[in-house]
């Protein structure tokens, strides 16, 4: 894997890095053959490879049976995860739509945002009627500021991996543990890849410490990213000109 200069790099290098980080070494041959003539086609192909190998190919299971086996404890933990995934997916989706971050970061966001939206769908499908509604978010300009965005993305990914680590031994149902671990490894790869992308050490120590749900809730509250939904509709008689 070639080292990525944080100042100067091409989209191809970034995508290659993502491929390296995101999928097994066995698939690097696929990545190598994915370098076509045009940038757009290359991105499409390499990102598609990641999408299929990273998520679509892994999650196979019986959601109905798993839902029946879930305890109240499992549901409480998964609902928290869903809020966190809502937060991350909204964050990356907004950053990609605004297009104010650097091209290489945006290429990373394009892949990771798709993963996070996929996580939301998976958790919502698993929780069914027990799923929490999507909250409203206000990222207060962070999604259009490169430096702030990077800091927040690194924190999000590190913390999500740490939270899932804390939750894993607390789940009652084994299929839920298996599902949480499929999320955990992807979040850890996201954490490593964004760190690598900006010149930070992908892993800072030999062992990672878990972060409790309470700690996470406190950190999220401090960002003030989760807000009340604006009231844009009312049961009220109009006073328009008519």
């Amino acid at each position, binding site marked *: 894997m070639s080292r990525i200069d944080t100042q100067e790099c091409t989209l191809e290098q970034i995508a290659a890095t993502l491929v390296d980080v995101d999928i097994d070494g066995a698939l690097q041959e696929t990545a190598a053959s994915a370098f076509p003539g045009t940038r757009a086609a290359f991105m499409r192909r390499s990102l598609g490879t990641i999408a299929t190998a990273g998520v679509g190919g892994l999650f*196979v299971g*019986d959601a109905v049976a798993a839902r029946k086996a879930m305890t109240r404890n499992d549901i409480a933990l998964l609902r928290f995860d869903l809020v966190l995934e809502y937060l991350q997916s909204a964050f990356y989706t907004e950053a990609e739509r605004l297009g104010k971050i650097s091209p290489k970061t945006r290429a990373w966001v*394009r892949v990771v945002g798709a993963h996070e939206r996929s996580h939301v769908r998976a958790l919502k*499908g698993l929780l069914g009627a027990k799923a929490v509604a999507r909250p409203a978010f206000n990222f207060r300009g962070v999604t259009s500021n490169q430096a702030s965005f990077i800091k927040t993305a690194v924190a999000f990914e590190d913390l999500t991996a740490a939270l899932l680590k804390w939750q894993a031994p607390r789940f009652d149902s084994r299929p839920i543990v298996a599902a949480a671990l499929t999320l955990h490894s992807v979040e850890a790869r996201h954490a490593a890849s964004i760190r690598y992308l900006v010149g930070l050490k992908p892993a800072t120590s030999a062992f990672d410490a878990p972060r409790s749900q309470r700690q996470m809730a406190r950190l999220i509250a401090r960002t003030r990213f989760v807000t009340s939904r604006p009231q*844009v*509709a009312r*049961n009220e008689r109009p006073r328009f*000109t*008519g």
Partner: protein
Amino acid sequence: MRYAVGLGVLATLMVVAILLAGTGSDGGSGTATDPGKRTAEQGRRQSPGSAALLAGAAGSLPDSTRPAFDVGRTQLLDRRKVRARFASVSRRVTALARPRKGAAPVATVPAKTEEGTTNVVLVLGEKTRRGVAWVHVRLPVLPNGRTGWVPRSALGGYGFVRTRLIVDRARLSATLLVDGRPVFRAPVGIGTPAAPTPPGEFYVRLKLAGFDDPFYGPVAFGTNARSAVLTDWPGGGYIGIHGTNAPGLIPGRISHGCVRMRNKDILALSRLLPIGTPLTIR
């Protein structure tokens, strides 16, 4: 080629390890040169070799647990989809002519509309000046079409829509586009020549329902467009899009400036039209 050589070496090492384990030589008690002299007691005490452990343990492990979810293919954002951006106003703010402190004020934007809903503004662009993020917005003030800059901190979260509503005053019709494609079209009533529906670029900023006034029909949408004539109208003379109790007058030039639709049409539109949708009246 390198993989093949590597695999060959690995396989050879494993065979050697298994043979050694089979003879009891795992670095424990006894001598490798004369294994036959070891007693049965010594054999019971020694732990199995790593290779034997790996070979034996695999058969005794339970089946792996399948993950609980079943998700579809990961989807990248579709960049071709046309999106407009809007934001709620989180505090009363003065919009300025330029994105810098001390610039000329354009209008005051309250956090609530005259109908009591959260005020929203259509976002046209962004700039950061001296560390302060500024947002260029379309304003709900007269004269129509006025824009201004507000600090990002005065706005709530961004919302995105893929819709655009076009009211054609010549054809007396309203067309809703999603990603640039028409999905809804209906005849409308617009303002009389004395109180015309103003032309220009606007946006939908609120929705009212559950009221008991047949004149406005079952649903009414509020826009940021204002009548240039009925400025003293209660509530500020805002232009709405609503139903009617006189469907026979539609299509026609019959209103005080509002866009009127037959009730079945406004109900159909209300299921498709999100707040924040850009509105073109031409």
